[in-house]
């Protein structure tokens, strides 16, 4: 029985139970991931991190949440009141909706019913996630506009431009997956990965998706929409109390759901690591949940690692990277993938396929070597152009033995 039929047979109350479970999982994941992020970043920066509230500081985010909720709720005078209230609600509701099509386990028994931990299985499930994500951006853009001040507006503008450009790259990275699995349904894509994960077969798509997923969730190094150093927090500068908490929640749930989508599309979803397939039958199938969350946590750790390592990109560099690198590369990659796919479907001989792959590799190598040569040439030219200027002299500390030499060359 396929997942569609399994889920289709669910009674109404079971669907409701699953909906509540998804909500609970997302909220608990948020609480834990905020704690984990703070601890991991602290470790990377040789600090301790929150360790006072509860064992290992585990309850820190809960305490912070309560504090946030009890704070005074301010609405600026210049704000557009209705939109100001709607914006965080849009953000927080859409981020949960994306989780509805993510398969978290295979076939399991829940309250006497055979089902799968997936709320619904749309034939266009992945497109549905993209649609929900694009509605979610409204939250950020409207928050920026309705606050009625400069920094939030700039944050909102940056975010809309960012999401429009990175959603293109993200959509293109998914095309290769659709071509290989022959479906846009999340469960069918997982079934298509029973031999090889798409993260291996379609490695370039995987890389492009991972980059654009960081851009999509407004996380470092792509957090231009809320750049603290430049925009005082960007789109949520004017928000306080529960409304701010909703944005906070939305950011982390979004991280979890894009990680879950990456797991589903590229890392075989709830399936075990290759060679450990026997574990999938443990606990009546529920053990697959462990595999699913292990992979999601892997992506989450990547998010935190990036935040701890990379500085924020400059805006023009960021846009250039999106439009001039990511999109052309993914277009080229889609051409290659679809040619290979058609070749193998039309029963071309192995020799043709190998020759085609070899030709593509040769082209890529020649292009990159040309590019490298060009780079060296410009480097030389730059060095030549520098000679036109006199070399500056800097104040240097005096060396031992020649005491009076040091201060002579001070300029300016």
């Amino acid at each position, binding site marked *: 029985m396929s997942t*569609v*039929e399994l*889920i*289709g*047979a669910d009674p109404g109350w079971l669907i409701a139970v699953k909906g509540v479970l998804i909500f609970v999982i997302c909220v608990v994941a948020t609480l834990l991931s905020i704690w984990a992020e703070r601890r991991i970043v602290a470790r990377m920066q040789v600090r301790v991190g929150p360790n006072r509230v509860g064992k290992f500081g585990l309850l820190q985010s809960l305490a912070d949440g309560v504090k946030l909720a009890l704070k005074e709720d301010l609405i600026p005078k210049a704000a*557009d009141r209705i*939109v100001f209230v709607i914006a965080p609600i849009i953000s927080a509701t859409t981020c949960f909706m994306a989780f509805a099509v993510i398969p978290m386990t295979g076939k399991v028994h829940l309250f006497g019913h055979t089902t799968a931990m997936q709320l*619904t*299985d*749309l*034939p*266009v499930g992945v*497109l*549905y996630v*993209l*649609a929900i*994500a*694009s*509605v979610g*951006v*409204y939250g950020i*853009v*409207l928050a*920026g*506009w309705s606050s009625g001040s400069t920094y939030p*507006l700039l944050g*909102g*503008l940056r975010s*809309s*431009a960012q*999401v*429009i450009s990175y*959603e293109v790259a993200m959509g293109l990275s998914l095309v290769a997956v659709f071509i290989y699995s022959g479906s*846009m349904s999340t469960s069918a894509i997982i079934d298509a990965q029973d031999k090889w994960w798409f993260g291996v077969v379609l490695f370039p798509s995987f890389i492009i998706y991972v980059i654009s997923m960081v851009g999509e969730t407004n996380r470092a190094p792509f957090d231009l929409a809320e750049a603290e150093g430049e925009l005082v927090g960007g789109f949520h500068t004017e928000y306080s109390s529960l409304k701010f908490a909703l944005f906070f929640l939305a950011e982390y749930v979004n991280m979890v759901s894009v990680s879950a989508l990456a797991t589903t599309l590229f890392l075989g979803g709830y399936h075990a690591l290759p060679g450990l397939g026997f574990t999938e039958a443990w606990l009546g199938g529920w053990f697959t949940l462990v595999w699913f969350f292990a992979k999601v946590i892997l992506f989450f750790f990547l998010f935190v690692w990036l935040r701890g390592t990379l500085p924020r990109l400059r805006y023009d560099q960021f846009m250039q990277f999106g439009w001039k690198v990511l999109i052309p590369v993914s277009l080229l990659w889609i051409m290659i993938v679809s040619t290979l796919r058609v070749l193998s479907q039309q029963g071309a001989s192995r020799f043709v396929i190998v020759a085609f792959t070899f030709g593509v590799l040769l082209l890529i190598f020649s292009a990159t070597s040309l590019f490298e040569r060009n780079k060296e040439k410009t480097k030389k030219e*730059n060095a030549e152009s*520098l000679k036109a*200027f*006199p*070399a*500056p002299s*800097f104040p240097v500390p005096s060396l031992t033995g020649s005491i009076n030499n040091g201060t002579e060359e001070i*300029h*300016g």
Partner: protein
Amino acid sequence: MHNIFALSAQLQIGNTATPEAVQFWILAPLAVLAALGMLLVKKAVHSALLLAWVMVTLAIFYIAQGALFLGIVQVVVYTGAVMMLFLFILMLVGVDSSDSLVENIKGQRPAAITAAIGIAGLLLSLIGRATLNHPATGVESINANGNVQGLANELFTKYVWAFEVVSALLITAALGAMVLAHSQKVKSRTSQRDLSIARFRGDSLATAAGLPGSGIYALHNAVDVPALGPDGLPAQASVSRVLEARGDMISSTPFELNKIEEEEK
């Protein structure tokens, strides 16, 4: 998903299935209200939002009628991309700016009226065919091999020519927009590299590490107090030129360090 297919199988002209009827009578009035509101509200952003809401309700109707792919794509393309660009421009232009009512392209009005009549005719003929019991192919027969597969089959076999023509039109429009928006640069943009060279290979190294911050070495660190240089003189470059022009700059002499030293003695 199954529910939707079951629903669309029950669905026949004249007897709409109950859940769909309930959904229609809740969402349709809301959509009409939003559409009217879009025309009547004052702020451009509000009307853009109401339009986005109309598009989302349309998408829900499509999905309820079995056109799943169309519904989702409606949200991705119209709500996600087109309306977002609209909002982007509205925000860039500013809230208070009013529309210019001067027509600078001639013949736009008759063209718009012709197009409106054409679309009205199309809609009327379609609704007429549906309500006058004209034999129509049901959704279930089209969706027999799956909604997406059926759509792809139609698009890439029967309508492939129309598809290509439309895509050529869109590419032309995009190129046109790029040509119109493109402006020839008189001189090349100063890059970060140029600025850096200018800082270090210029006459003086005084500002090589950036301008001095306000208030440094004085006993006051407000933005309107100039910093004191190592020579004890106020550094004018440390205060924003805007403040200087406005006459909002305070002299840093009362905050000089040596004063305190004297007092302590």
